[in-house]
């Protein structure tokens, strides 16, 4: 009995234990549906397994899932390793559901202040010189902090990272001949919200892309199939999915998503066109609902900045009294989730562990109090990136330390 228990735990691995615990009730049933009972055995060396197949699947012992609400779905940051988000676990935020778009009928129209208004099919887009780049996406409404029992996924799971492939927007802008006076473009989606955002043309000259692939395969429907705008480092909503139209203009269009939404009170004003996502980090292990033991713990997490590369991540294991540099996983990429690690020997006393990121512009992730000082008490819920803390209790339980400001 005891022997069997240990062997299962070994199979499940350390960091994944929390996710599996959530599924404990249905654990037995899931094994039976995923693997024929005849094949399930305590000794795999005595049974020949299934033959090669057309499409692979996750191990039946692994159940990472997004956490969905009516309007969004969050990446299980605590269940991931490294920095690439599996495409089916990429966060979702859309305003009128996921459209079904036939790739053979798909067209992208570029018009307005251009010399040649043009239409590109998906096949056209794929013929242009292509580029792949790895970067994060993050919804600008990505901070929850109301209670102790929050997982990293619940606190800030509206961020994910992929390797995107597509065509540089400048390549298409060369083709249509963007006029010198054009300073903004409207990006419009082909979903039921017909989502629109105005984007400064400077972002196109910088690093904007139209992408049709994600992590080596066609973009998933939830991420904008068959093609989306990618504005590395900029708030998720501007990366318009299911992109059908770009219109060049000499002024912004003041769409609902850049006036009524995605704006926020700063002191007695409302801040608009807040594009870059500021530097941020989160410890993903140890985190609620995990339980740790006294001794060596590798503190792990991710850090990212919409302004460039992560320069440094510091970790505190004494509630913020002192800070030590964490190790960054190479390669550290521009505007990308960067894994960090810090080896710590826990003495079993109650404490708080925290992380804070600094990016290459010299910006250091602020506390909620610093954000309040800068923006005022009515600062709203967009673009919040505060340092967060995990409380490690004497019994090894890990709890989130809620940040209260409203």
């Amino acid at each position, binding site marked *: 009995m005891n022997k069997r228990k240990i062997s299962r735990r070994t199979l499940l691995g350390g960091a994944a234990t929390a996710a599996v615990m959530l599924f404990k009730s249905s654990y037995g049933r899931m094994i039976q549906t995923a693997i024929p009972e005849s094949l399930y055995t305590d000794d795999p060396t005595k049974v020949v397994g299934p033959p090669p197949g057309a499409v692979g699947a996750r191990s039946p012992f692994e159940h990472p899932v997004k956490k969905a609400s009516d309007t969004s779905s969050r990446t299980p940051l605590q269940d991931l390793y490294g920095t690439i988000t599996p495409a089916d676990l990429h966060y979702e935020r859309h305003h009128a559901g996921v459209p079904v778009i036939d790739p053979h009928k798909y067209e992208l*129209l570029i018009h307005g202040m251009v010399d040649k208004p043009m239409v590109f099919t998906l096949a056209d887009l794929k013929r242009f010189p292509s580029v792949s780049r790895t970067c994060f996406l993050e919804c600008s409404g990505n901070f929850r902090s109301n209670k102790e029992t929050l997982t990293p996924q619940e606190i800030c799971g509206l961020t994910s990272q992929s390797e995107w492939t597509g065509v540089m927007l400048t390549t298409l802008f060369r083709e249509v001949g963007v006029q010198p006076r054009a300073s903004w473009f409207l990006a419009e989606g082909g979903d039921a919200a017909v989502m629109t955002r105005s984007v400064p043309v400077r972002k196109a000259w910088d690093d904007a892309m139209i992408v049709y692939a994600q992590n080596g395969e066609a973009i998933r429907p939830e991420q904008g199939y068959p093609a989306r705008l990618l504005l590395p480092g900029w708030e998720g909503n501007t990366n318009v999915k299911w992109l059908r139209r770009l219109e060049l203009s000499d002024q912004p269009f003041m769409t609902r998503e850049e006036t009524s939404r995605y704006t926020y009170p700063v002191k007695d004003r409302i801040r608009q066109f807040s594009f870059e996502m500021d530097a941020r980090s989160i410890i993903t292990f140890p985190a609620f609902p995990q339980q740790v033991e006294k001794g060596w713990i590798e503190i792990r997490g991710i850090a990212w900045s919409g302004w460039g590369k992560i320069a440094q991540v510091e970790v505190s294991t004494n509630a913020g009294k002192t800070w030590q540099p964490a190790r960054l996983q190479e390669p550290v990429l521009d505007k990308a989730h960067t894994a960090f690690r810090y080896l710590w020997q826990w003495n079993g006393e109650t404490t708080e562990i925290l992380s804070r990121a600094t990016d290459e512009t010299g910006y250091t992730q602020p506390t909620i109090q610093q954000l309040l000082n800068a923006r005022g008490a009515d600062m709203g819920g967009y673009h919040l990136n505060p340092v967060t803390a995990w409380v490690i209790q004497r019994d090894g339980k890990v709890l989130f330390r809620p940040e209260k400001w409203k």
Partner: protein
Amino acid sequence: MRLKTYIVLSYITLAACKPTTGSHTALLQDTGSWPASFHIGRRATLAEINALDIDIRPDGKGLPPGQGNALSGQTIYTAKCAACHGTGTAAMNVQLPGPALMNDSAGANRKKLRTIGNYWPYATTIFDYIRRSMPYNAPGTLTPDEVYSITAYLLYANRIIDQQTMMNAASLPAVEMPAKKLFIADDRQGGPEIR
């Protein structure tokens, strides 16, 4: 106070000229040997452009012919919108599928309920958004007259225009929204300062 300076500046130019961390395109791709054109894709026809070009700019560019006022708008609103958005300014007892659209204290009381009356900087946005995405369960089904009428009704219900005023391609962009003066362009620019 630093914020005050931004009130008088046009945030259009501000946001467009904000410095960036550097050009990355050059690093991602070497375009040195590229032809002037790849001759991929085709010219768009005017009909194709007109079929998709539904956006409205704050200066009114894009507004279609047609008109309507709050009187006709109220009838349409009651039939097609109220089920999800309610008809009043008071807090609802039930959770409605859509956000409240009215506020009886134009320009003030921003903290409580952010709506057209105290948070929307441009009247043209109401037209643009309703035409493209509402009603939520049947987007893109309203005629220009219906959208003008509902827009007029929402402006009236938010105490910005009166009940008779006709909204059309000329009058809608001229409506001064109470919240416009509150909007400032993002002034974050990277670097050590927390903003």
